[in-house]
């Protein structure tokens, strides 16, 4: 195992200490594992709280700041945070205008956020919750836990965050968050497995020369395994999977996301192929974001997320944002 760590047990705390040192504009509670924008609670503003397992950086801590999240709760690696963290975060950022929990659809995240909502409501916090479930690789049915929440989380956090920053009330921020989720679809591909610090070896076995189509952000398999494909073929497969599920009737935001171990050289090359498919399919691209945003430790691979936008959603996407990992317009 070659990892830049001390011991697996302190990986998350060590990262939080480093984050605090790099970002004085954030208030980082290392012991209780809550990252809060320093000026919170902001009077008159709805607060947004998200969280999930660590190992997906910059999600979610990297998205805390003006124009996006009010607070984030990192759990252990690939493990959802506990209700105490979320309730503490909600109490720290609530200005009285209410709190929106943004929850990715994983059993652990859902259960813990539900318990946290009960705790926070007991403390008099007005709460709303939006579930992100954009991954088309696994289908919703009677027998599964439903679609996973992946890349669309970034769109939901950015666009709903902008609405909150403008002073929209809780019901409106919640409605926008839901709309963004409903308009978004993702598909991911793994070229190699990631390694968790606790296990010290790859979390799944992917022979070299093969790839996993429809991989999840914890390395959970999706649709099928195939022999290695070219960037062009992967783009065709991924974008078509997304478009098949939600054929857009308007312009889209594009997120070409790296899983952690794929260089930007490859991601930009892959983006060229994604844009080609979209042109071929007659889909107008409003904005494109390329980079490592919703990662899976050191997994190699990528995901594509499309979000259909109207004028208002696009305006909110373009609105100023100032976080560790996403900043523009200020």
């Amino acid at each position: 195992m070659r990892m830049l760590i001390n011991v697996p047990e302190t990986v998350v705390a060590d990262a939080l200490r480093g984050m605090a040192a790099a970002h004085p504009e954030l208030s980082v509670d290392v012991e209780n594992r809550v990252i809060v924008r320093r000026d919170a609670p902001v009077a008159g503003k709805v607060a947004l709280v998200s969280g999930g397992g660590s190992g997906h950086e910059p999600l979610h801590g990297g998205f805390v700041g003006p124009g996006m999240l009010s607070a984030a709760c990192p759990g252990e690696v690939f493990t959802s945070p506990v209700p105490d963290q979320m309730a503490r975060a909600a109490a720290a950022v609530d200005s009285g205008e209410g709190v929106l929990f943004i929850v990715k659809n994983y059993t652990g995240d859902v259960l813990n956020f539900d318990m946290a909502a009960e705790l926070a409501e007991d403390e008099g916090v007005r709460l709303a919750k939006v579930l992100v479930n954009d991954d088309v690789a696994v289908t919703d049915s009677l027998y599964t836990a439903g679609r996973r929440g992946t890349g669309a989380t970034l769109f939901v956090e950015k666009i709903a965050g902008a609405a909150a920053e403008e002073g929209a009330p809780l019901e409106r921020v919640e409605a926008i968050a839901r709309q963004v989720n409903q308009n978004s679809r993702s598909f991911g591909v793994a070229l190699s497995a990631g390694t968790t610090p606790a296990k010290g070896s790859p979390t799944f076995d992917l022979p070299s020369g093969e790839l996993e189509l429809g991989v999840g952000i914890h390395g959970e398999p999706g649709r099928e395994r195939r022999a290695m494909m070219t960037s062009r073929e992967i783009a065709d497969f991924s974008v078509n999977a997304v478009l098949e599920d939600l054929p857009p009737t308007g312009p889209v935001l594009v997120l070409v996301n790296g899983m952690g171990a794929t260089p930007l050289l490859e991601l930009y090359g892959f983006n060229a192929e994604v844009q080609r498919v979209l042109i071929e399919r007659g889909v107008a691209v409003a904005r494109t974001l390329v980079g490592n945003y919703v990662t899976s430790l050191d997994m190699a691979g990528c995901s594509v997320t499309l979000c259909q936008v109207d004028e208002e959603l696009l305006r909110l996407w373009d609105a100023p944002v100032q976080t560790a990992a996403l900043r523009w317009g200020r």
Partner: protein
Amino acid sequence: MLDADFFRRWLTAAAVCVDREAGRLTELDSAIGDADHGSNLQRGFAAVTAVLEKEAPQTPGAVLTLAGRQLISTVGGASGPLYGTLLRRTGKALGEDAEVTPGRFAEALRAGVAAVAQLGGAKAGDKTMLDALEPAVAALGDTTASFAAASEAAERGALATVPMQARKGRASYLGERSIGHQDPGATSSALLITTLAEVSS
């Protein structure tokens, strides 16, 4: 009769057992989940041992409720709320009596298992911890001798998850590829029940 000390010994022994088996649980989880079940439970049960030493609750109900709350606050993932609810609801069902009969405990544990089923929205056959817990509580009777039968039933239940296809939790995303692997949650549940049998004998 079972008193607070008995339940403290059970949970302390369970912590030792989870600590010993953490590697195996994580290995099972890496086959169909995300490779953290062992380390998560290890962290949670270590915290349970610590809080029971510090606060020393005086009734069986209080021991289990406190342990459940501690698991919810430290484990995370799905196992935190699920195991936490199992112990907390069992503890609540026991009320405030200083001692309880094995039959009364069996009844309370059945309520705990029902709460887990409700929270997770799962049922027997979905390849979850319920596949070990449900046969275990079905085998529990009015005597501590029935704890051994429950332990065997839980072990059999955990083994029976191998050919199942997961329909809940992260393993459900694997679909047919979850077949052929023992469920880590059912395995840890069997450990918990086996420990119960061990401390009662």
